[in-house]
């Protein structure tokens, strides 16, 4: 009878270990890519980003170059989307307009996140009088204003222009992120891992930023994506009303405003930028909805 050699380890099949976090991300990506509409939305969003980034390469003409010999010309082989009342190429203006829209979406949501996340985090973690009677009541008051009206009033006070429009839109979005972040923190703060972190003696600052914040980012990411779509509409609305991007910088909203005066004779001036806003916002919404379903399949 041969005794087993203690120096030789028996060969046991060990499945390749995947960390739970990696597995979670893999499942999430799987759920996202199964959602065809979300993938289409993501694809168009990516296309918009590339268009904005490479506008100088893609645009067939200078978006501000005026050519009165081409006044209000319909779509043709030389000007695919036609020309406007100053003979400018609409396709080129739409391509450059993507830069403005994307910038407005990202920066205004960035402003809202920069204020909303820390305020929501501290408010939800410490609660108390400051949370209940100051932060929540101020957010209640801001939410009482119709968002576009508040953005309009702020843009009017700050002065017309893209920068001020982005600040105004950002301010309008802040309460939404404060409330969402606070709600997330409230649901996390009583959990065992937070108790354990606190018991280990680390500072509140570390508990909040290293332990709680990463667990709250999913819904914030989804909300931020959907807010970008709203911010693009808001910027276009402000530009339509003359308080956003100023001429001659091409903006989809101001192009629509110009086009409205020529609807009977040159409908393409208004229709193409309108369609672009619609496709962009729809794509980002589809992407955001898909992201939400992938992060939390229960909401589907």
């Amino acid at each position, binding site marked *: 009878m041969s005794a087993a050699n203690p120096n030789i380890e028996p060969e046991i099949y060990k499945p390749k270990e995947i960390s739970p976090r990696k597995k979670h991300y893999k499942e999430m990506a799987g759920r996202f890519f199964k959602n065809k509409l979300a993938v289409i939305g993501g694809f168009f969003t990516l296309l918009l980003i590339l268009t904005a980034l490479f506008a100088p390469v893609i645009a067939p003409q200078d978006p501000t170059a005026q050519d009165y010999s081409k006044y209000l010309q319909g779509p043709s082989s030389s000007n695919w989307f036609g020309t406007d009342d100053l003979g400018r190429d609409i396709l080129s203006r739409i391509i450059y307009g993507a830069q403005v829209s994307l910038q407005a979406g990202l920066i205004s949501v960035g402003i809202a996140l920069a204020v909303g996340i820390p305020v929501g985090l501290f408010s939800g973690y410490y609660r108390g009088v400051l949370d209940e009677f100051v932060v929540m009541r101020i957010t209640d008051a801001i939410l009482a204003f119709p968002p576009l009206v508040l953005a*309009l009033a702020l843009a009017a006070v700050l002065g017309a222009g893209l920068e001020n429009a982005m600040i105004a839109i950002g301010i309008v979005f802040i309460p939404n992120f404060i409330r969402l972040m606070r709600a997330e923190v409230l649901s996390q703060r009583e959990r065992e891992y937070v108790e354990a972190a606190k018991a280990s003696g680390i500072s509140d600052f570390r508990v909040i930023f290293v332990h709680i914040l990463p667990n709250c980012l999913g819904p914030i990411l989804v909300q931020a994506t959907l807010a970008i779509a709203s911010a693009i509409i808001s910027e276009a609305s402000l530009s339509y*009303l003359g*308080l956003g991007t100023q001429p001659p910088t091409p903006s989809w909203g101001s192009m*629509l405003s110009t086009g409205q005066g020529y*609807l009977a004779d040159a409908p393409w001036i*208004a229709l193409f930028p309108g369609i672009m806003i619609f496709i962009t*916002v*729809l794509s980002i919404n589809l992407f955001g909805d898909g992201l939400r379903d992938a992060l939390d399949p229960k909401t589907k």
Partner: protein
Amino acid sequence: MVNFIIRRLGLMVVILFLVSIMIFSLVHITPGDPARMMLGQEATEEAVEALRARLGLDLPLYQQYLNWAGGILQGDFGNSLKDNTPVLTVLMQKIPVTIQLSIFAFFISLLIAVPAGIIAATRKGTFWDYASTTFALSGVSIPPFFLGILFIYIFAIILGWFPPSGYVPIWEDWKQSILLMVLPAFAVGIRLSAEIARMLRSSMLEVLGADYIRTAYAKGLLGKPVIIGHALRNALIPVVTVSGLQLATFLGGAVITETIFAIPGIGRLVVDAILTRDFPVVQGAVLCMALAVVIINFLTDILYSILDPRIKLSGGN
């Protein structure tokens, strides 16, 4: 219930107080002299000085606020800088117009959303469900001003079915008034209908899976009475909340829709006043809109508790 209403009323007063401070601050947060900002850089120093004295801008800030808020509580919203008309008179002329547009738009949104939501939920996974969901997502994504322009182009310019823009009071010529309201009401209402249809679909799906619905089917009831009599009644509860909370977005949509369709409502008043820097009018009109949102939210909360007595309202949050 009474306790809840009292607490909720108290909260409403606090919110309105903060709202009034914010609206008052609008004129003061800007760098520089508010009187100069209202009149523009071209105005003479005397004109600026006169306006400053007229608006009491030389008084301490807290006193300016107390004067302004005290005036509003007594119905004095100040006078328009444009033609010196009392702001309250201007608001009283504009509010009924926006209310008319809102009622039309709300009616249209329900007319579209309720069948769309029910069809999507009862025929889940079919073509109708996808069509309804796509409509809802498109409706949320399409900017109201583009929808307005698109409607003018298709239904007024190409087909000639409706006048492109304008407004006639309903008591002057009801036929023309309704014709003029159709396109703007659809432009505002479609977005709201998209939100309601989305909410109704998910709410119906949840209710249709409940035990009491299965019991209703088990009792031998057929589809329609179960869906309308049992499921829809309960599924409408969250829809009431959504509709109420959407008012703020709805009023925002009205601002731009009224501008596109040249409707002399409170939305267009805000835009015109902002563009002409008529700040007493801006303050009055924005306060009116915020007041409407706060009151509707309050009523929505009350209605919510009446529709679903299970909801505990003691916290008021």
